[in-house]
């Protein structure tokens, strides 16, 4: 693969513009579509960077989220945002991002940023070198997320399980009726 920097910068510019449109537009449906455009551009960027696993996941999740958000948006009576944005919230979030960038520069400034694509952790070298002989999985990503880093995936699955449990409990509008209480309910 040749130099992919121009493609990546184009995608990055597209994503920044899409995010700004999503924040600034007054129509909820336009905002939802702009956010999805940013997500699809991120998927293409992952493909350029040689991460097909993440690209596939990003693509399918983006499609699902787009369907759910559009479905939720068109159920609303009025999709235009009428209230003005809170100035205090904007200013405080800007200060927060400034602090984040400042502290990041303080941490990385002393030792310099690592080379693009260079791993931050030494342990990942062991994963790459012993992935196939240790787990017999040809896809190195599968061997990392389900064998070396199984704890992380278990935690992620737990988070997903609990959040979906909570969403089902809170969002359902038609309550369940227990058998036996049906006559009185």
């Amino acid at each position, binding site marked *: 693969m040749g130099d992919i920097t121009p493609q990546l910068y184009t995608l990055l510019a597209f994503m920044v513009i899409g995010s700004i449109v999503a924040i600034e537009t007054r129509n909820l449906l336009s905002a939802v579509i702009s956010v999805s455009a940013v997500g699809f551009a991120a998927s293409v960027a992952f493909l350029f960077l040689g991460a*097909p*696993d993440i*690209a*596939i*996941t990003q693509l*399918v*999740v983006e*499609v*699902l989220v787009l*369907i*759910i958000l559009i*479905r*939720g948006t068109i*159920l*609303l*009576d009025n999709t235009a945002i009428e209230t003005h944005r809170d100035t205090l919230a904007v200013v405080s979030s800007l200060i927060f991002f400034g602090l984040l960038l400042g502290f990041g520069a303080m941490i990385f400034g002393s030792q310099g940023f690592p080379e693009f694509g260079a791993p931050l952790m030494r342990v990942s070298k062991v994963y790459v070198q012993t992935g*196939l002989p240790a*787990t*017999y*999985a*040809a*896809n190195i*990503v*599968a*061997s990392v*997320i*389900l*064998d070396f880093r*199984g*704890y992380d*995936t*278990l935690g992620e*699955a*737990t988070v*997903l*399980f609990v959040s*979906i449990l909570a*969403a*089902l409990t809170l*969002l*359902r*509008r*038609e309550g369940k009726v227990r058998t036996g209480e049906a006559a009185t309910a």
Partner: protein
Amino acid sequence: MKPTGMTVIVKTITDFVVGFIVLFGAYIVLYGHITPGGGFSGGVVIACAFILVMLGHGRDVAFERLGERTASILDSTGALAFLVIAWLGVWGGYFFMNVLVKGTPFRLLSSGSILANNLAIGLKVSTSLFLVFSALAVFRKRSFRALLEDDLT
């Protein structure tokens, strides 16, 4: 949302396409340890097939094919299966140890518990995302404003 679903064109195309989508999702789940993909992305593809049925045919047909209760049970089964496979490792030495038969690399039946974990996660993700879609988009029959007015009065 009308319970009857969309037009006959959409229904026909849905019936034609939905099997292929489930097949593709099953392929991504099963070959997650050989090619890009895995339990999560394949599960989302299968969930998209369920959602397509729900959007095209309406909620009644979709819940007939995969009931809410069945989906909930399958969701919990997937999560439990993942945990059980993780505990199987304790039998061999430590939590999450790959104790199953590993086979030869680049074959479908290889890599031991990674394939089993992929299957469990695929089952869990596909049914739970279907449930979340039905909770977010279908359970609410009336408009949000009408519900608010009901709550206020």
